[in-house]
């Protein structure tokens, strides 16, 4: 056990910083506070990610067989920390590089890998995630959208909800029921321009482009669009979720927001002892989240991270986000309530969703209780 960075890692971080300093121009600074699913950020990401790809910074952690550089998960994570701190200029494309791509690598056919991984590593394709439904949120296996086999095709009917990025996405990583058993689910890599798909945005407090309803009315899917064997989508989902749940170093933006709020208080001469106490406490929560996240990355660098460690990191991240969001509201309500520091509002919007997206915190607590403490199974564990 040691907590240092290798020279190579330190250089890699500097390289990312230098790249961002060069390519995140004033245009980005203006749109960074917008939602990752907004038209402006999505469009920026399609110009920015190809540059990242060209610099070898988009998918270095992918195997060379899939166009990566066989870099360690640490190399990828260092990039993620710097990008997230900068407001995540990859927009929705972080999905692709963090978890959709790796899941297709594991379960995809050569043709699926060739096409989809090729698009992702070029950095110009947007995906959405068709998981949650009105009947299945935290209880994902309760989903009702069905894919009926009709000859060599499937006919999909049902609806998804809370789907981020759906309006601008080219593809959906879609879960649909293909049998009567609770967990008989299949995964489809479905083009979003398919006839019968309707996307309706949901206005929300988390930002433009983040929440949608998606309706499937007799939508056809080809057998070649199914990911993995029919009916065995649950194991695909579990694999994907383990990548998804710690794809985002959210504490990096939280810490940056904390520093901005403190800087504002110092400039106003208002950073008194009580505020210092609260700020230091919020910082310690972020650092706790960082260390638990690092543990997951460390485990991933040696294979697959444990569910327990992944859930602990998720819970810690949510607590860290809340600590910072509360600090901002308690001490700098003027920043929250004005356009003076737009990143403060951005952080709040992202923090409020952090405990819900990718499995509610309470589901993570179920998993910790079951997998780490060996306490009797709860539903959802």
């Amino acid at each position, binding site marked *: 056990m040691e*907590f240092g960075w290798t020279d190579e890692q330190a250089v890699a971080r500097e390289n990312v910083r230098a790249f961002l300093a060069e390519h995140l121009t004033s245009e980005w600074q203006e749109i960074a506070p917008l939602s990752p699913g907004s038209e402006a950020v999505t469009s920026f990401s399609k110009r920015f990610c190809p540059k990242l790809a060209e610099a070898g910074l988009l998918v270095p952690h992918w195997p060379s067989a899939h166009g990566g550089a066989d870099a360690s998960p640490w190399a990828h994570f260092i990039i993620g920390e710097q990008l997230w701190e900068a407001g995540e200029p990859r927009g929705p494309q972080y999905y692709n590089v963090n978890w959709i791509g790796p899941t297709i690598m594991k379960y995809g056919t050569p043709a699926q890998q060739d096409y989809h991984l090729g698009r992702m590593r070029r950095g110009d394709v947007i995906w959405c995630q068709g998981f949650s439904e009105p009947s299945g949120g935290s209880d994902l296996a309760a989903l009702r959208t069905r894919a009926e086999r009709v000859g060599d095709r499937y006919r999909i009917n049902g609806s998804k909800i809370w789907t981020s990025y759906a309006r601008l996405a080219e593809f959906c990583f879609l879960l649909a029921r293909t049998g009567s058993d609770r967990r008989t689910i299949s995964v489809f890599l479905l083009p979003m321009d398919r006839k019968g798909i309707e996307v309706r945005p949901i206005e929300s407090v988390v930002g433009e482009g983040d929440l949608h309803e998606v309706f499937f009315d007799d939508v056809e899917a080809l057998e070649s669009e199914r990911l993995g064997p029919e009916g065995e989508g649950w194991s695909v989902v579990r694999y994907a979720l383990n990548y998804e749940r710690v794809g985002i170093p959210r504490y990096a933006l939280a810490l940056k927001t904390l520093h901005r709020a403190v800087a504002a208080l110092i400039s106003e001469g208002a950073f008194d002892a009580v505020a*210092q106490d609260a700020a230091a406490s919020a*910082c*310690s929560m972020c650092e706790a989240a960082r260390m638990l996240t690092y543990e997951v990355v*460390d485990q991933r660098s040696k294979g697959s991270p444990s569910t327990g460690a992944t859930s602990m990191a998720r819970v810690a991240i949510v607590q860290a986000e809340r600590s910072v969001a509360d600090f901002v509201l308690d001490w700098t309500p003027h920043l929250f309530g004005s356009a003076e520091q737009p990143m403060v509002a951005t952080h709040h919007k992202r923090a409020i969703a952090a405990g819900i997206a990718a499995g509610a915190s309470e589901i993570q607590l179920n998993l910790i209780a079951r997998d780490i403490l060996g306490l009797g199974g*709860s539903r959802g564990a």
Partner: protein
Amino acid sequence: MELELSPDQKLLMSALDGLLAPYRSAPTGAHGYFEYSESLRQALAEGGFFDIVGEQGFGPLEAAMLIEEVASCPVDAEVAASTLIAPLLGCDGAPVALAWGLGRPARYLDRAGTVALFHENGLLVGAPAPDDWRTETSVVAYPLATLCRLPEGMVRQPADLAEAVHRRALIGIAAEAAGLMRGALQQTVQYVKDRQQFGQPLAQFQAIQHRLAEDAQTVHACRLLAFRAAYVDSAKEASLACLYAQQAARKLIYDCHQFSGAMGLTLEYPLHLWTYRLKYLQGEAGGRGKQASALAAHLWGETS
């Protein structure tokens, strides 16, 4: 960044594990407020564990691992100051007591060969004589004594050494608190698995599962932050780890006692051997407020 133990660290922890086996449970018939074990300290000394910071390839990180592991046992021995601070002061042998002011109780002072006193004049170090202190009786699960007067021959230490001793003291508190929390949590988890109410183990109730799951996450974070602070051996990280640990102790202590019911209030049940050390550590070195203030100064400057 490598969060698995190295082969040498594994060997170290395996040797320690063997040594601690007799101390993993409270002695039979133990009904004391604290369980200090000279034999545990002796065994650690004979095993060379107190010299760990000077060992080839080892340093404060391995000392923190040792402190955390020993603290997870219900039986106590002075380990933190002997491993992290004694090498700085050039003293060895008897326990080292850290006193956070004249007239205030200090842990292990009644059996210390050396006392390091954080005083308004700086850090003073010397050998306490029996007339210098009085034993305290309390529910705290540490042997406590109060330094009534300044022992003769106390030597004021240079500022950089004082800073290093203070930093290592915070790292020691963080590591020890992490181990105490782990021990208390393990005891409580076992209790809720065994204890039946309403026809099922307490462990089946989600209200209990969630709180203990939160605690497990916090305890693990404490451990990693304490180890990181030891590895980098910096004042900022020491403040941060100590702040987090002293902050986390509050909820953990409450939860462990709450789920142990009235059993947790008795001396025959060992929970207090962890929690009543942890309670004391909550306020050590000025408590979480002091560490928060120090961390804020490290992060945002003294003028903040």
